C-alpha cells in the first residue's frame, strides 16, 4: 500500500493554489458578486475590465488553458457577432452610415458595447467558477450547509451518466452502422439514424436504474443517519471570510450607489 496515498486522506484536501483552495461557497459568492457587478455599474469600460480580470484570475489559478478553451467561443460569438447585430439595428440619432435596414449610429455602437460587456463579464465569472471548482467539492460544501445528499447524488451522477451515455451512444451507433444504417447522406437519411440510436440508448439507461437503486440501497444510500466523507475540505480561514465580506460590502455599496443615482 502506498503510504503517501493513504496519507493524503488524513488531512483536508488542498492543492496548493490560493485561488483554487478557496472554499466552494466563497467562490460561488465571489463569482456572483464579480459577475453581476457590471450590471450595476452600467459602464462598458468596467465590464471589459472585468473580462480582463477574469482572464488574469484564470492564469493565477493555473487553469488558463481549460478556461480559455471555453471562453474564446463566447468571446467570438457574443463579443463580435452580438456587437455587430446590436450596432447595426439599435435605434439612434447620429447616423454614421446607412444601407437598407442597417443603420449604424453612435448610440447603437454604445448600446452594443454595453450589452456585450455585460454578457462577456457574466460568462467569464461563470466559466471561471466551473473551471476552478471540482463538482465533488461543491456538492460537499452544499451538504455541509445542510442540503440533502440526494442533491449531491443527482448532480454528480448527471456528469457521470453523460459520459457513460456518450460512450454507449457511440457503441450503439457503430453497431447500427454494421446493420446498414446510414449516418451520411442527405438530411432525411441522417435523421433516420437518430431514432435507432436514441431509442435503445434511453431504454438501456432506464432499465439499468432498477439495478442501480438496489445497489445503492445495499450501500446504505437512504439510511437515515449522518453521512461520512472520505476526504474533507479545509476549514474556512478568517482571511477568506474577510475577503468575501469585503467584496460583498463593496457590491452592496454599488447597488446603493446605483439606486441613489436613479433617485437623485
Amino acid at each position, binding site marked *: 500500500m502506498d503510504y503517501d496515498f493513504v496519507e493524503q486522506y488524513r488531512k483536508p484536501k488542498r492543492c496548493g493554489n490560493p485561488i483554487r483552495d478557496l472554499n466552494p461557497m466563497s467562490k460561488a459568492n465571489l463569482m456572483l458578486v464579480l459577475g453581476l457587478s457590471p450590471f450595476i455599474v452600467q459602464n462598458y469600460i468596467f465590464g471589459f475590465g472585468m473580462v480582463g480580470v477574469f482572464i488574469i484570475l484564470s492564469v493565477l489559478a493555473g487553469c488558463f488553458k481549460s478556461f480559455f478553451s471555453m471562453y474564446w467561443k463566447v468571446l467570438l460569438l457574443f463579443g463580435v457577432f452580438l456587437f455587430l447585430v446590436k450596432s447595426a*439595428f439599435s435605434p439612434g440619432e447620429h447616423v454614421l452610415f446607412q444601407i437598407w435596414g442597417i443603420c449604424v449610429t453612435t448610440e447603437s455602437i454604445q448600446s452594443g458595447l454595453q450589452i456585450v460587456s455585460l454578457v462577456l463579464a457574466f460568462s467569464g465569472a461563470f466559466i471561471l467558477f466551473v473551471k476552478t471548482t471540482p463538482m465533488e467539492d461543491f456538492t460537499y460544501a452544499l451538504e455541509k450547509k445542510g442540503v440533502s445528499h440526494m442533491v449531491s447524488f443527482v448532480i454528480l451522477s448527471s456528469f457521470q451518466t453523460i459520459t457513460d451515455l456518450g460512450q454507449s451512444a457511440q457503441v450503439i451507433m457503430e453497431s447500427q452502422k454494421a446493420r446498414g444504417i446510414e449516418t451520411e447522406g442527405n438530411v432525411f437519411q441522417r*435523421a433516420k439514424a437518430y431514432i435507432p440510436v436514441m431509442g435503445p440508448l434511453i431504454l438501456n439507461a432506464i432499465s439499468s436504474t432498477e439495478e*442501480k437503486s438496489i445497489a445503492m440501497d445495499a450501500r446504505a444510500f437512504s439510511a437515515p443517519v449522518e453521512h461520512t466523507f472520505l476526504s474533507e475540505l479545509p476549514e474556512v480561514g478568517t482571511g477568506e471570510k474577510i475577503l468575501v465580506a469585503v467584496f460583498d460590502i463593496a457590491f452592496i455599496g454599488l447597488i446603493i450607489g446605483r439606486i441613489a443615482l436613479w433617485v437623485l
Partner: protein
Amino acid sequence: MKNFNKLTIFLIPIGIAVNVVGGQLAVLLKLPVFLDSIGTIVVGALCGAWPGVLVGLGCGLINAISLPTLLPYTVIGMLFGVIASFLAKKNMFDKFWKALINGPCIALISTCIAVPITATLYGGFVGTGASVIVTTLMAAGWDVVPATFVSELSSELMDKVICLIIIYFVLKAMPARFVVKLPNSKYFIKEEQ
C-alpha cells in the same frame, strides 16, 4: 427531494444525460434541430412535474457550462417538465396523432417565453443558425420582436414536432413492469378488464 420515489431520483440524472447526449447526437448527425429536451419531457411525463422541472434545471445549468449565455433559457426547460406532466395526465401520449398536436403547442409556449429573452437580452442574436433569419428580416426593415418570433417559431416547431414523435415511440416501448413503479403510471397503464 425527500419524498420522491426512489426510482424517480435515479431517473433525474438519466433524464439530464439523455437531454445532453441527444443534443450532441443531433449535432453529430448535422441535423438542423436541437432535440435536447427529450429527457425532460420523458421524465416529466412518467414521474410528474417536479422531477421534470429538476431535469430541465440541471440540463440548463450543464449546457450553460459550455455557453453561459444559455442560462436565461433554463426557465423554458423547467417549464417543459410541467407541461409534460400535464399532458400525461390528459392522456396526450397514447396516440400518434396526439403527438402531432403536442409538438406545435409546446413549440408555441416555449417561443412566447424565448422571444422576450432573445429580443431584450441579446437583441435578437442567439448564436445559432436561426440568427441568420433574424438578421435577414431585420435588415429588410422588420422590428426585432417579430423577426425573433418568426425565426424562433420556425426552428422550435420543427424541433418539438420531431421531439414529441420520438418521445411517443420511447414511451410506447417502455416496459410496463417498470412504468408501473413510477408516480404517473396510472395515466399510462390501462387496467385489464
